[in-house]
């Protein structure tokens, strides 16, 4: 493997891990506040659909992004109402949202655009385009560092930079602000937070809304940056893989980034080994390649997460007089 194909691999690793990173950070906020969220998948899907639809109709990708975020926050609030106000089972609520999103995107898409659940192809201002970082052309000929800078770091869509900037921001919010301290506390011991006179419900609602905003970014990235339009079930389990990355990273922001990069890397590799004659194994079948991300997710969850410690109050509705 030469340098250029290696850089190509790294480049697609970054592209493929971006939606995972958004979704996993979204889950991080929610789960750190004690609200388990299996519905990352559904929220990404509805956001992908909403932003592609809005971008197709109005021709503006920023408007699309906003609509996508609104849609995801709307679904987040349903999850919040079910699991915070009505103290329902959070897994059940999440599963419900995933189904509603899967059905709704197809029914509405078919009714609005009549293309079998797809949205019209996006072009021009309807898509996020690559950003050239300064001096990318000038340093291209510098050995090693030049191609890395101009080929990998530069030339990504703006959302990629947003996603990776969210990592230090999330770390700072969670570990260096009063809000973050309270957010983590409410996921560990809500009774203590309540005793201090802080509203458990309001805190958790804020966390759930942040989760909605970030899944909105994830969905918009899928349909308006990575692809040029929405196709049915386009998330294809990415929400669950993001969740696996979150567990794998033990609910910490910087490890979450590395976990997402790992899953993105595996995805990028699995696309490339199709049809390649590997030593010992021989040619890998298409089906094995398509199943590989899911198999690896199970392997990673099984092999290394023995010591995973979820937020202590995660998944438990808060009742004052318990």
């Amino acid at each position: 493997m030469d340098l250029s194909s290696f850089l190509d691999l790294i480049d697609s690793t970054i592209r493929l891990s971006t939606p995972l990173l958004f979704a996993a950070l979204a889950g991080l906020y929610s789960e750190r506040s004690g609200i388990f969220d299996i519905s990352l998948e559904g929220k990404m899907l509805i956001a992908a659909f909403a932003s592609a639809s809005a971008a197709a109709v109005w021709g503006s990708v920023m408007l699309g992004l906003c609509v996508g975020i609104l849609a995801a926050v709307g679904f987040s609030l349903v999850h919040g109402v079910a699991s915070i106000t009505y103290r329902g089972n959070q897994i059940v609520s999440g599963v419900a949202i995933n189904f509603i999103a899967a059905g709704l995107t197809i029914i509405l898409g078919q009714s609005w655009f009549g293309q079998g659940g797809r949205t019209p192809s996006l072009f021009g201002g309807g898509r996020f385009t690559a950003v050239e970082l300064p001096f990318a052309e000038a340093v291209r000929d510098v050995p090693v560092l030049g191609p890395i800078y101009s080929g990998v770091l530069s030339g990504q869509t703006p959302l990629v930079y947003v996603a990776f900037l969210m990592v230090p921001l999330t770390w700072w919010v969670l570990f260096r602000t009063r809000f973050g301290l309270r957010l983590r506390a409410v996921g560990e011991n809500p009774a203590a937070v309540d005793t201090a006179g802080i509203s458990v419900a309001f805190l958790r609602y804020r966390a759930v809304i942040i989760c909605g905003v970030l899944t909105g970014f994830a969905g918009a990235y899928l349909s308006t940056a990575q692809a040029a339009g929405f196709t049915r079930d386009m998330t294809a389990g990415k929400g669950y893989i993001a969740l696996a990355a979150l567990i794998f990273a033990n609910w910490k922001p910087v490890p979450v980034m590395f976990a997402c990069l790992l899953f993105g890397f595996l995805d990028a590799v699995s696309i490339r080994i199709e049809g390649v004659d590997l030593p010992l194994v021989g040619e890998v079948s298409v089906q094995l390649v398509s199943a590989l991300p899911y198999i690896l997710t199970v392997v990673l969850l099984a092999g290394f997460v023995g010591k995973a410690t979820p937020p202590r109050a995660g998944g438990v509705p808060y009742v004052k007089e318990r």
Partner: protein
Amino acid sequence: MSRPYAKLPRWIDYGLIPLVNLVVAFLVAGLVVLAVGESPFEAAALMLRGAFGYTEGFGFTLYYATNFIFTGLAVAVAFHGGLFNIGGEGQAYVGGLGVTAVALSLGAILPWWLNLPLAIALSFAFGALWAFIPAYLQAKRGSHIVITTIMFNFIAASLMVYLLVGVLKPVGSMAPETRTFDAGGQLPKLKGLFEVFGFNLGGAPLNVSLFVALLAAVLVYVLIWRTKLGYEIRTLGFSPRAARYAGMSQTRLIVVTMMISGGLAGMMALNAVMGDQYRLAIDFPQGAGFVGIAVALMGRGHPAGIVPAAILFGMLYQGGAELAFDMPAISRDMIVIIQGLVILFAGALENMVRPGIGAAWQRLRLRTVEPAGENVGEAR
């Protein structure tokens, strides 16, 4: 607000509240129908006519219901053990391999009534096997069973495509499916039986696996409420710590519960593969594994509730197929929305209507009791 919910009579808990939840779910679904520019009332009427309006449609309704009884029971058994099995779809898919193994190898040799028990055993075994790995990982490694079972759905889909395209496809055929089973691999339809009572089922694929499903429902009741294992499963579901304190092996219980659950999901293949299509085809479960979640929640985990809930969803599936002819804007995917809404309102939001109904019931009871002179009003 945070006082414990009052204990309600059984008919409210198991009858009225699920009914109200269902009505709310359908009202919201009606809004979606309205949003795509069709009349919800007309849609409901078309759906009902499609499902119950003529005997063939009714036959289809019961055929789909048979699938959902199996998958609903599967989810319910896991629920009783505090486990959430979202992998019913994959387990049913792989269960199809068990059915196919019997039908292809013995279909020409043995009659159907000898093949049926074998197919039941093998479909159960294959479904259980597919649930075993997530169960074992949950019990031993703490991997979240919800995520692993979802991953196993994706893996099952790839595995089955691989097998159907490569190994199981007859030579010279293009379609990714097995050859049609011989007579011994085909379960008889219930057409004749219903004709005795004057019903004409037409081409409806309703077959003897309906009785297998009903038998499974009875057996699940016996298992959960009348056996030691069932008691242990429910203890695990209520309080894993209590189960451990009582000396029950958590690992064994999780694995056994999930394997029973996966086996029941696998048996769904009897109906679709051996009872209708007579061959193993791509994606034959068609979402039945997921419908099982809604069915189990609607039926509150009890077979007596799961069977009617399965018939309800059978009605939605059959009526929805008819509906799609008349209202092209409403495809089968509408069912997925309704399914999600039922899971939301009957499962996650079940506490939404309960306090209101509880308070109304309390008031109603006081009004009828007080004239008799018994003052129990302030007790609660």
